[in-house]
């Protein structure tokens, strides 16, 4: 038997997806975010980018996946946990979010005026912008081509 780590539904061994919350079950072991060992933290102030008129955010994963979203409202990145009613706009479970140390509510992307910002939501393993760790709960401007890292998961930002 295996148990869905998100909503505790029980399935036979080797079941691929949870029928309740749609989580990918192969390889998921625990439900909490494990702290990552041996990460270095450097305080760097990233330079502001010019993102005038951007409407769409595209996140590209090293795995080859891409997610495109309109920037009309804030976008929360994290891991979906139906059991705790956490519904991020972008669920990173299938990008190995759990193994990479992504929190349920990890970071968010917002547009204010002509600028797009990323903000860490006090995540356990931190959010990095071009390899520099961000202070939690402070918005940092991002530009096209920036690398945003959640825990160990690296996303390349494309703005259109």
């Amino acid at each position, binding site marked *: 038997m295996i148990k869905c780590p998100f909503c505790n539904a029980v399935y*036979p061994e080797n079941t691929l997806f949870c029928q309740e919350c749609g989580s990918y079950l*192969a390889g998921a072991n625990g439900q909490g975010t494990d702290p990552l060992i041996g990460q270095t933290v450097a305080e760097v102030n990233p330079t502001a980018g010019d993102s005038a008129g951007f409407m769409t955010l595209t996140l590209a994963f090293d795995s080859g996946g891409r997610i*495109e979203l309109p920037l009309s409202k804030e976008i929360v990145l994290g891991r979906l946990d139906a059991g705790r009613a956490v519904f991020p706009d*972008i669920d990173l479970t299938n990008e190995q979010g759990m193994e990479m140390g992504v929190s349920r509510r990890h970071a968010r992307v917002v547009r204010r005026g002509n600028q797009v910002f990323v903000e860490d939501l006090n995540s356990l393993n931190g959010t990095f912008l071009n390899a520099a760790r961000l202070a939690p709960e402070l918005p940092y401007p991002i530009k096209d081509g920036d690398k945003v890292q959640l825990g160990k998961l690296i996303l390349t930002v494309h703005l259109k």
Partner: protein
Amino acid sequence: MKHEIDPQRDYYAILGVLSDADEQTIKRAYRQLARRYHPDAVARRADQPEPAEQSGQGEPGAEDGAPAPAGTAERFREIQQAYELLNDPQQRETYDHWRRQEGLDRPPAFVLSTIVSHELLPCLDESQSLYVLVKISAAEEIESRRMPLNLCLVLDRSTSMKGARLQQVKEAARYIVDQLGEDDILSVISFSDRAEIVVAGQWPADKAAARAAISRIQADGGTELLQGLKAGLEELSRWRRDDMLNSLILLTDGQTYGDDQACLEEAGWAGVQHIQLVTMGIGPDWNDDLLDRMAGLSGGISLYIDSAAKISRTFQEQIHTMGDVFAQNLALLIHCGEGIEVREIFRIAPQIKPLHLDDSQVALGLLEKQQPQVVLLELLVSSQQPGRVRLLQLALEGSVPAVGDHMVRIQQDVAVTFAPDLTGATGTIGRPPVPPDIVTAMGKLTIYKMQARALAEVETGQIDTAVNRLKTMATRLLNIGEAELARAALLEAGHLAQTGSLSGEGRKKLRYGTRGLTIVPKEVHP
């Protein structure tokens, strides 16, 4: 009993064996088929009580059991004849010789290939899941022969169709007239409170008169589906032949009242007659449950057209699909090994649809030449001894007009290896990964199932659960890049939370949108 040897008939395909099959294989194939088609066995199955009908709760495509086994006796004779011939070495050699002379020793008409989620399974004390993806396609080498159409368009001309909708429908109908081949028969029915024959089926078709008659259709009155459906089926049965593609395209934009049950009965009758219904709904106000079930009962499909501008394209796609039909009355036969249970079967492509296993058989309808069908089986496997185990025996049957009037059959086994020492391995380490095609297909299918459950929960008043499910679904849809559908799911979650019901449009968007989450695996290893 001696029979005339007919080199045009593919006796190998009738038995579902390759032309180099040895005696044992031929014997085994014959025994299996004989068990299935022997008149006594057929009679015995027919005596058994019908399984209780499924409550069609928003569950699309609920198909009834196979109709009375017409033609089984004939099929049995065919099987016997093929076996008698191939089992006699002398006759077989003569037959092979003739076939080579006439260039008829061709490869089988179908290609059946499978992938399993786990090639290597641990021996466990408990049951485990296993997924099998089955891809069915037309053999490339075989030239497709277009089947003549016996087509009836049944068009809603109620007041609400006035304007762009009716304009587009007429244009689409005229396009179909232009596309008709020499052997095709077309009839057109319009309906409101009653039905009128706009174009009666005739051969050869008078295209100019048909175009003119279609142009004269006027919008007026209510929507009485049954009237149109009955008139359409009547026209079709006047010309119906087994070697034709008998199809009825029904298009409506409104609710019909009080005749739902009668419509379903007509649809069931159409299925028995091998007339497929393609039901199309325009706009937010028609009854998707009804149209879906009608299509399902007849082995056809139902389609959602969200704006008048898309009517033409939908008709065009349908008429081209019909021109591309390679095989009819396709059925997948599944025999499970010991300790194997088929839990669910879904069609994954061209459109997601739940399928039903009835007497070890799944009806798959039509196969297009260019568009493979992909079916996903979810199995429950109970404990097995170590070693190679045959889980399933699959056989595919269907009639392929391009190779003759007999049933074509091919077979394939699905086997995996059980290993005792896998139990010790932790997590995914040391195990080959699940093939990406299966993960993608199951991921999309899971979203489709969430949709079906959410709609069912709304029906039974579990509003909070349904709201949460729609939200989860939205996140999953975003994950796979389906931003538009995700937005629709979120909007419906909001609408549902506020009003306790779904919007007519959103409900259809989700229902039909999730069906389009299909995949066709590029590389499937036979």
